[in-house]
């Protein structure tokens, strides 16, 4: 992807995030300047030593130069290590703030955005692009600026020594830099290919290791190895090409540097024989030629990082300019007391496909409603509108008498609790999974909620700080469900939306869940999406949705007694039928 960085946004991003660290930034530049000054000074000390020795100076003055050389050399190393350290610190601090801001922005975007992106993309946006920027600050500032300054310094000293020398050194640096920067992109494009080939190779291995039983039990070992040869051939071809290209770059650089050394020797000999410079100065030329190697290499290399960081900043700006489709600026707080739910002529479209068509109903406070209907009929959409993951396109949704769009986000979240079918868990402790990392909730409250959910004993055995694996590793489906119940008990909402778990559960867990469900429904308004007819036996009312319309709504007993009702017909079709 090629995009043009607009200078203002680029500068604005860097300024915003670097300004708070201006003290560190100044320290960084001081360390850099110190290191560069010393690097330039060390060869000058050598020059003085050689000339003084040849002129027959006293030993003590030679020793003094030697000591100065030693001190300058060690100080230089200290300064450059300090600069690298401060640079890294600065880079991480500034970009951690950027990561935070980006994550906050993305968390605030509506579900429409999130359903169209994958977690992998989010990792790339929040971390990948930002890390490119971090490298840019840490390495570009330290290495590129430092290297550039050093090159300029060498050039200045060379001109002072002899203008001919200045021209030679300047021409040499410019020539080598131009060639290397060009060649570098050639080596880098191959490196990207190489990265892809390795990702393919290790991806193949990882998937096959995970599926080792499927492969072995289905006798596919030989065929898998055959496919692996294809992947290896691709890896080999791409890696060897990339490495060769790198070798070409590296050998060219090396040739240029050694040619530079030979040139430096020749220039020294020639200028000395013409009487322009001393032997010490001839040695100085060789030293400076060796001094410019690293900065030249680094400038060539960091130019690539610069491009990558530029791409990162462009993508970061693009993400920050996306606005949430959900206006969450409401401030209204709900009055205390039981809450009902009402839909007034609510319509909703998803991707221009009508999902709900003018749905109206009223659920009195404290009523348990079983929501039935075919998959894709609109059941889940109704629950998502009540929990305001989406906004209706037309019509109004009321909690009590308040339009949910005017509610403040905390008030809404406090009032509506949701148990989804698949429980989303973090690779974190049980406590963190219950509280979503909110440390302010005390153990007693957590344990009380766990007891109500029927998980108290289980958690007491393990401890609240037991780590769960990612995607709920180490948890049975039943335990994950009960954990989701405990989350809602902690929240203690007035309205509960329950998407009935369809996971296979053994009888014991089923009964635990039934108990927890019973406690969850007490004194709350409940909308339960049911997949089995047995589940709605606890419901007071039944709503049946079909093709985006509410086709039936009434008391469960009345509907069951009316043989013409859909509910009665479903009952007659036999228990155990799966409606999903």
């Amino acid at each position: 992807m090629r995009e043009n960085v607009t200078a203002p946004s680029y500068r604005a991003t860097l300024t915003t995030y670097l300004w708070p660290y201006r003290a560190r930034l100044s320290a960084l530049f001081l360390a850099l300047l110190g290191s560069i000054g010393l690097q330039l000074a060390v060869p000058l000390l050598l020059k003085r030593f050689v000339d003084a020795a040849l002129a027959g100076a006293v030993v003590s003055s030679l020793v003094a130069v030697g000591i100065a050389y030693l001190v300058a050399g060690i100080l230089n190393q200290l300064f450059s290590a300090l600069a690298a350290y401060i640079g890294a610190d600065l880079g991480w601090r500034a970009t951690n703030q950027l990561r935070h801001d980006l994550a906050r922005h993305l968390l605030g975007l509506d579900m429409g955005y999130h359903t169209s992106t994958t977690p992998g993309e989010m990792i790339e946006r929040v971390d990948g692009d930002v890390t490119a920027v971090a490298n840019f600050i840490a390495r570009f500032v330290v290495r590129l600026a430092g290297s550039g300054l050093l090159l300029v310094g060498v050039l200045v000293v060379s001109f002072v020594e002899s203008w001919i020398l200045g021209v030679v050194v300047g021409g040499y640096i410019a020539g080598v830099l131009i060639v290397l920067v060009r060649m570098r992109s050639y080596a880098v494009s191959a490196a990207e290919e190489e990265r892809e080939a390795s990702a393919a190779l290790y991806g193949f291995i990882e998937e096959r290791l995970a599926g080792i039983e499927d492969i072995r039990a289905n006798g596919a070992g030989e065929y898998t190895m055959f496919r692996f040869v294809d992947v290896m051939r691709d890896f080999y071809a791409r890696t060897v090409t990339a490495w060769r290209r790198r070798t070409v770059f590296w050998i060219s650089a090396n040739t240029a540097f050694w040619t530079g050394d030979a040139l430096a020797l020749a220039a020294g000999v020639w200028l000395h024989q013409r009487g322009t410079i001393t032997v010490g100065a001839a040695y100085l030329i060789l030293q400076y030629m060796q001094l410019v190697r690293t900065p030249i290499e680094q400038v060539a290399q960091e130019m690539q990082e610069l491009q990558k960081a530029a791409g990162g900043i462009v993508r970061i700006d693009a993400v920050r300019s996306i606005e949430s489709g959900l206006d969450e600026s409401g401030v209204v707080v709900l009055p205390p007391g039981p809450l009902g739910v009402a839909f007034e002529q609510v319509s909703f479209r998803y991707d221009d496909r009508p999902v709900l068509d003018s749905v109206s109903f009223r659920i009195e406070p404290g009523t348990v409603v079983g929501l039935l209907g075919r998959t894709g009929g609109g059941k889940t959409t109704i629950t998502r509108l009540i929990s305001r993951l989406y906004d209706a396109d037309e019509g109004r949704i009321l909690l009590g008498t308040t339009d949910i769009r005017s509610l403040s986000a905390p008030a809404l979240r406090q009032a509506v609790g949701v148990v989804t079918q698949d429980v989303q868990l973090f690779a974190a402790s049980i406590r963190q999974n219950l509280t979503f990392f909110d440390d302010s909730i005390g153990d007693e409250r957590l344990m009380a909620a766990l007891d109500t959910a029927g998980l108290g004993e289980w958690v007491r055995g393990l401890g609240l700080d037991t780590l769960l694996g990612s995607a709920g590793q180490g948890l049975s489906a039943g335990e994950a469900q009960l954990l989701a119940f405990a989350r809602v008990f902690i929240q203690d909402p007035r309205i509960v939306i329950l998407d009935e778990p369809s996971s296979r559960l053994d009888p014991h867990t089923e009964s635990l869940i039934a108990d927890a469900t019973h406690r969850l429904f007490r004194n709350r308004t409940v909308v339960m999406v049911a997949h089995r007819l047995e589940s709605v036996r606890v419901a007071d009312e039944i709503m049946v949705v079909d093709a985006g319309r509410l086709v039936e709504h009434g008391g469960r007993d009345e509907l069951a007694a009316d043989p013409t009702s859909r509910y009665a017909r479903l009952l007659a079709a036999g228990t155990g039928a799966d409606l999903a």
Partner: protein
Amino acid sequence: MSTLRLGLELIRYRLGRWTLAFIAWTAIHALPIWLGVLVGAVFERLADGEAAVASPWTAVVWFGAIAIGRNGILWIGDIAWIKYWNEQVLQLRRNLLRWLLEAPGSRTVTASPGQAVSTFRDDVEDLVEYVENILDGGGVLVFAVGAVAVMAGIDPRLTLLVLIPLALTVILTQSLSPQIRSRRREMRHATEDVTGFIGETFGAISAVKLADAAEPVLAEFDRLNERRRRAALRDTFLTELLRSINVNMATVGSGVVLIVGAGTMRAGTFGVGDLAIFLTYLPRLTSYMAFVGDWIAQHRRTGVAFDRMRALAVDAPDSYLLDRTPVPLAGEVADPVETVSDVEPFESLEVEGLSFAHTDGAMGVSDVTFRVAAGEFVVFTGKIGSGKSSLLRAVLGLVPAQGTWRWNGREIADPAAFLVPPRTAYTSQVPRLFSDSLANNIALGRRVPRERMREAISLAVLDPDVERLEGGLDTAIGARGVKLSGGQVQRSAAARMFATEAQLLVFDDLSSALDVHTEGELWTRLFSRRDVTCLVVSHRRSVLQRADRILVLNDGVVADQGSLDELLERSQLMRDLWTSPA
């Protein structure tokens, strides 16, 4: 096998190529001895001025010729090494994977996928890096000996004096380089934590939103970022420390040369040329000393890396892991020939006294005996955790188990190798698909005739899904393709099993991902084929009703077996399972 022996074994892999690279690299490392002498000669003659016996120009020309010629050798050495390296890493990875997928007996990967992949990537590279160090070792040694000889020839006392700080470099590098590696690892883990957390947060975005938990989640995110910053700084600190030591040892050495040399220079025994030689050699000598320190650390690491490879490929003989049969990395490759072994018709599978224990102490199975005859439908049922899935895997030899297996009355020595298509095929509880086309996933690399493929898809009730997929059977699925739902994955795996046309079909629970209706359809379609024999784990009523025989498992043992009616009559456990709402 000692680590050095291991290194030599690896060198023998492509001895010719390695020798070529070795000669080239020895020359590359050794030539700077001469270059230093030439630089010394140039300055000696410049310092002598009019009195010089020869012109400095000869030395300058020689310097240029050697310095540039050396780059030609570099090219030869590098190309040889690039090929050696890449062939060798792939060879080792091939050997590892082949053992896991094709070796006789039961093969399980006990390490987590991440750890296992890191053995494939990092441990294998450690081995080859060790060979690279041997490659460099010769030249490093020649340079060190040569340079020290030249320096001692000039001034033995001064040489001894500057070598002392250099010896420190060996010790410091040796002790720091494992530390640097562990800091790197820490840094990598900290990064994985950050990226993992972002992935999980946005994977659970609706839960985060519903709980209004953005603030605490962000606080946790900041904490992880802060931890990574610290890890990064520790890494930077150690790296810079090591670099400083190396550079400073050279600086200290050079300083000593200047301070001590000042006196001898006045005395006329130590010239400017000699000074230039010392100062040219010192930085290279220091970095070579660091190399020696690193070599010692690498030597230890290589032993550990090879042990990890052995641990991953349980029971593999070293000769298998170091096998040298070439991987066809270039040129034409022929498809593997389908070995159409004439299998005798299936009559029965008898399993006697089957026992298997999990290494982590979880419920295994003990002393299970049963028989499946051709045309039968046998179901294992029981509570969650009763050992049903373990039992299926033990029957197929996927996990190491004790017992006796008989196929058509004859005992099987290696059930893992024997119980494969065209005899048996298997669908696990959580089947894995690979990032490839759907067709390749179903065929698993075999050549499946179109008719057989169509039938397999239809039997698995996958046909409506294939119709909906834009690319049909050629649709790429997995990491970089379409993400299939759990049910679609399960049915694709079933199609994969049907496509093998195996005589005995082994299913782990289908109900975890399929709804009652779809699963029922699958069984109806399957039973319309008369010749089917199945061994199934399930607790769905519709499946239990079809069973010829049911084995009820409880805590890893068969509590009872018989027909559904018999069991409902006499087994309380069976009645409990039957009335559970699922």
